[in-house]
């Protein structure tokens, strides 16, 4: 009986091993948000906000950009303050036993003149710097070394003095390194107005009181020190800052146009101001060789009488604590240049080719040049485009991405678009896949809003649009997870430039209605 029982049990277990041979699935009708966005002129132009014109009738696209800001390293040469003193031990003290704590009564004084090209510095003021020392010694006994830089003073007028402890070398030449950090030190490099680029040092040495026995010198003993000024954070420099010539091209992106294009566009007068500022106490000359606007692969040269001409820049001055820059300004307008034609093409980038020369007349100021951080020489630009347009087939496109769970078998779908137009321009929509295939939208255009003569909104226009997708198209859309949403704007009246105002928007909402089968494992 038991065997039969077990047999039937086994049969039932085998029959009962009814593994899940197909997935669990069901049909559902889901609506998913895809995107909500607001389009306005600022968004189309890729800026955070627009400024209002003085008469408040339209907005202005205002882009300030900096072509050039010379760094400290551009204006000053590489200040390599590195020098070495060998402390020669007089032979007459050879063989004398010096007790611990005894200081040799000899001062080793040095004047080091540094080669800085044509730059002749009288005075240099550091916010901070590092004095790095490297000492070589083979002396058998601990030493101390008193380092003085008489021409370096802190902000209390106290000259630099420091004591460096040197461990015993036990007769073998050894190297000892260390650093001293200095803040707010003024270095007088003029040697009492008799020289330039000059640093004086005075060094004495003695025997550390830590020694337990007397120390004897012999003719093999050697002691030298190498000093180097590093990590120079310069506050100011006085003297002659030399003649420097800089030639360069600066490029700047002025409009983010990757999302829009237009067959033709009419705009009102734009302006481009180039402001050159000299914050350094040197005379300078600048020459703008070319201003080039770029769009895609094409370039358009800005025509203006100043192009290729030398502009003299007066030096910065400091009078009674007031710091005054030497300025020059070039104004490009529709009257003196071809700026309007170029801006109508919505260029993406601007290139500025320039030459800059400091002290073109040499040491004209008799060593009265100065550099004060953070003042520098800069070229800034200010582009203003009044937003009064007439558009023809102005196309703004955006790629819309979305996420949908996997393992679905959609039967069909509807892309729903709810749109509200506050612009005084007509707008037509187009939805495309990334491969360029367009989706059919019934009644894809929405008329312009009603506005008064000042462009103020009277009544916006609302529209609901639907795109019906079959199973295959829905599958493609879900696999791609992206589509391109295009808005094509056309002015309602070709003869008038409509003013763009800050509060004109086009709102859209997109959802995806899916009738689908969902599968789970």
């Amino acid at each position, binding site marked *: 009986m038991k065997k039969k*029982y077990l047999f039937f*049990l086994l049969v039932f277990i085998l029959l*009962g091993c009814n593994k899940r041979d197909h997935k*669990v699935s*069901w049909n*559902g*009708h889901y609506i998913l948000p895809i995107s*909500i966005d607001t389009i306005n002129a600022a968004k189309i132009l890729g800026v955070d906000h627009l400024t209002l014109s003085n008469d408040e009738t339209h907005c202005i696209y205002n882009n300030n950009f900096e072509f050039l800001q010379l760094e400290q390293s551009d204006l000053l040469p590489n200040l390599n303050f590195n020098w070495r003193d060998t402390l020669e031990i007089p032979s007459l003290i050879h063989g004398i036993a010096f007790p611990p704590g005894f200081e040799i009564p000899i001062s080793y004084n040095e004047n080091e003149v540094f080669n800085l090209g044509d730059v002749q510095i009288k005075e240099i003021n550091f916010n901070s710097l590092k004095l790095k020392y490297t000492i070589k010694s083979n002396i058998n006994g601990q030493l101390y070394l008193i380092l003085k830089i008489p021409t370096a003073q802190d902000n209390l007028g106290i000259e630099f003095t420091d004591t460096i402890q040197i461990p015993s070398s036990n007769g073998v030449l050894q190297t000892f390194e260390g650093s001293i950090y200095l803040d707010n030190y003024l270095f007088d490099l003029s040697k009492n107005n008799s020289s330039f680029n000059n640093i004086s040092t005075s060094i004495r040495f003695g025997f550390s009181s830590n020694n337990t026995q007397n120390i004897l010198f012999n003719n093999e003993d050697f002691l030298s020190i190498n000093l180097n000024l590093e990590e120079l954070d310069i506050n100011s420099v006085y003297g002659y800052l030399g003649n420097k010539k800089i030639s360069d091209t600066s490029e700047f992106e002025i409009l983010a146009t990757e999302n829009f294009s237009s067959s033709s566009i009419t705009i009102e007068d734009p302006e481009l101001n180039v402001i050159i500022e000299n914050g350094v106490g040197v005379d300078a000359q600048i020459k703008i060789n070319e201003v080039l606007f770029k769009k895609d692969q094409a370039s358009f040269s800005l025509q203006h009488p100043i192009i290729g001409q030398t502009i003299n820049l007066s030096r910065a001055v400091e009078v009674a604590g007031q710091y005054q820059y030497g300025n020059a300004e070039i104004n490009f307008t529709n009257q003196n240049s071809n700026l309007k034609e170029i801006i109508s093409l919505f260029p993406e980038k601007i290139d500025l080719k320039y030459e800059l020369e400091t002290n073109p007349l040499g040491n004209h100021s008799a060593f009265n040049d100065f550099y004060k951080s953070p003042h520098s020489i800069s070229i800034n630009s200010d582009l203003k485009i009044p937003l009064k347009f007439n558009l023809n087939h102005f196309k703004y496109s955006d790629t819309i991405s979305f996420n949908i769970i996997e393992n679905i078998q959609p039967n069909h779908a509807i892309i729903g678009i709810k749109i509200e137009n506050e612009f005084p321009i007509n707008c037509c929509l187009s939805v495309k896949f990334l491969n360029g295939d367009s989706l059919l939208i019934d009644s894809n255009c929405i008329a312009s809003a009603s506005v008064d003569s000042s462009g103020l909104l009277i009544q916006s226009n609302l529209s609901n649009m639907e795109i019906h997708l079959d199973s295959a198209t829905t599958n493609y859309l879900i696999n791609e997870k992206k589509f391109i949403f295009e808005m094509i704007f056309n002015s309602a009246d070709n003869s008038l430039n409509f003013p763009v105002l800050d509060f004109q928007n086009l709102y859209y909402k997109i959802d995806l209605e899916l009738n689908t089968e969902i599968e789970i494992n």
Partner: protein
Amino acid sequence: MKKLIFIIFSIISYEINALSADSLKKLVVINQTQFSFGSSHLNKKIFNKLYFGGKLNDNDKGKINSINQLQRSGLELDLNVGSQFYINEKIWYVNFQNIITTAGQYEQGLFDLFFRGNSELNQEISLTKTAFHLRNHHLFHFGKFHKFGRVGITLGSINQEYNIRFGENNYVDLTDPYQWNIMSSPDIFFIENTSDFLQKNGNSLGFDLEISNSNYEKALQYNLAIYNLGAILLHNNLKKISYDTNFTYSGLSLNQILNTDSSDNWLNDFKPKIDSVNRLIITPFQISASINYQKHNFNYYTGVFYRYNSQYLPKVYLGMNYTIKNKLILGGVLSYGGYTKLQIGIDSEIQFQKFKAKLIIQNFTNFIPPMNRSFGVFLNLSYCLI
């Protein structure tokens, strides 16, 4: 599913027959198995299809109810093997119990959102009362019978314990097809089973207390019982998912995630993290009360049963049976609660010498397709070995 139940019963029954009684003077071996699954709104077929696979049709998804109607669905499998025995004229008992339950309590709208879609949702779905659990506990009961009933202790090994409970004012609002609003701050924690037979990630300690008048001569009998009332200590590899978020979803490009430190890493909040702090929770204790009234060969009974923290609606029942020749009992029982609503069951018992079998089909109407929202069976086998 029926095959599975049969197999489970067969294995357990065979194990009972194989038990040995050693030197005890009196020994009763008891096997008690209860299996049920049910739902307050779902058709039985959905459970079959979710387990064995298949396509859920509209009938499987149940009727379309009000979005805010609270629904329950659950499954329980309660396997018991134990014995009662005499030592020094005192009756003791031991019982090994493996209880596996999984259930959920949710608003109809949440079910519809997943299985029907959100196109017809016209109001927000509250998550405040939404909770789910899955557990697999091994429990060892032992204790002693007294005149008033019995008292014992329950030691437990927590094989699995998953708990999800949403917070106050949590909701999902998908009524605007262009913009969803979700507020969610659930308490989600779980421990998983270990490969070690003895060392588990959680243990429990509880007590059993049963008060009854066990004098079968009386016409009116009562029974009050509480089983496994105590605490569970989840002490190893406790994982929790913790987030408190209120956000608007209007498409991938415009997520507005609030109440999170950084939108870059907000998804990390949804990943389980090991919680180094132990967690003490109340055991899913069971409480029951019943009254029997016997007159001639008729027995009338009623009672209530509840299991804590299991999304369980207290179940009330009312039954009657008739004894035929002291060997066969047949009757019917009406019940309401648990994971389903009204059930009409069949109550039967048969006795042969030392062997007694009690079988309750908890939802007889299960066999009528439009009414088969649940299925349940209770089987009690006892055999007096000595």
